[in-house]
């Protein structure tokens, strides 16, 4: 067994164990921290697969962004030390059965499929990604890039609208009616 293989199995164990703890831990804050370690393990797996750019994006967006938002929302909803309500044991058994059946089916499919691995070198330099991101011709991704930009803008506006306190407008209305009555009295 080479060091390359040992690193892969260590990363796989880290990802799967912390992922499993993340979905089974009864305390919400702890499961957020386990999710953080699972995502860091996945970033390590991208480094192992020589996709350094994706690893950097994974760390900055998932570990630095999404997990921080999740922890913030745990604190905002005062759930940090609270244990979550567990579902009925019969339903847990059926969930385990469904997951195991899906796993076995996928394993059988993957192990029986004959993947033709290419012997070319995997060359992922960042200027190539940047050029392909804005190219319009063959192998260019400028249309999905624009679509994702619009999606992000729409999601940002949607977040602000959904999370905005509706009571913010109330004092203004009160002030407005007050000023109207003042004008009437005058």
């Amino acid at each position, binding site marked *: 067994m080479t060091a390359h293989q040992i690193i892969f199995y260590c990363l796989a164990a880290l990802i799967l164990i912390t992922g499993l703890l993340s979905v089974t831990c009864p305390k919400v804050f702890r499961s957020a921290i386990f999710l953080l370690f699972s995502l860091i393990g996945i970033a390590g797996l991208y480094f192992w697969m020589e996709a350094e750019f994706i690893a950097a994006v994974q760390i900055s967006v998932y570990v630095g962004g999404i997990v921080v938002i*999740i922890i913030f929302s745990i604190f905002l909803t005062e759930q940090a030390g609270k244990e979550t*309500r567990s579902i009925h044991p019969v339903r847990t058994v059926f969930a385990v059965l469904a997951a195991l059946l899906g796993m076995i089916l996928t394993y059988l499919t993957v192990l029986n499929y004959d993947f033709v691995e290419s012997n070319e070198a995997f060359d992922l330099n960042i200027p190539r990604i940047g050029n392909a991101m804005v190219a319009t011709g063959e192998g260019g991704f400028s249309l999905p890039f624009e679509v994702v930009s619009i999606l992000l803008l729409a999601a940002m506006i949607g977040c602000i609208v959904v999370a905005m306190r509706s009571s913010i407008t109330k004092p203004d209305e009160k002030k407005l009616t007050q000023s109207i009555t003042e004008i009437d009295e005058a």
Partner: protein
Amino acid sequence: MIPVSHILILSATLFFIGMYGFVTRKNLITMLMSLELMLNSVNINFVAFNKYLYPGKLDGIFFTIFIIAVAAAEAAVAISIIINLYRTHKTIDVGAATELKH
């Protein structure tokens, strides 16, 4: 040399761990966390296919980048909805939001 099927088995296991969490949890934040695990397992698949089967192309890398962007947008929207639900119901348990049933 690790065969590509081992990476696919890792990502399939991670996906079904996420699915198990999604169906057993009743708290919206933990459901969102399980969803993130599932999206990440898909990303591992895309990068593995790009590296081992089509090393000369960039399609898998770009799919991964766009999935990460969509996941970030989805997490932000989900959390604003969770905070709004907490404001109106004082809980984020999925069993509490049943107005549309009646």
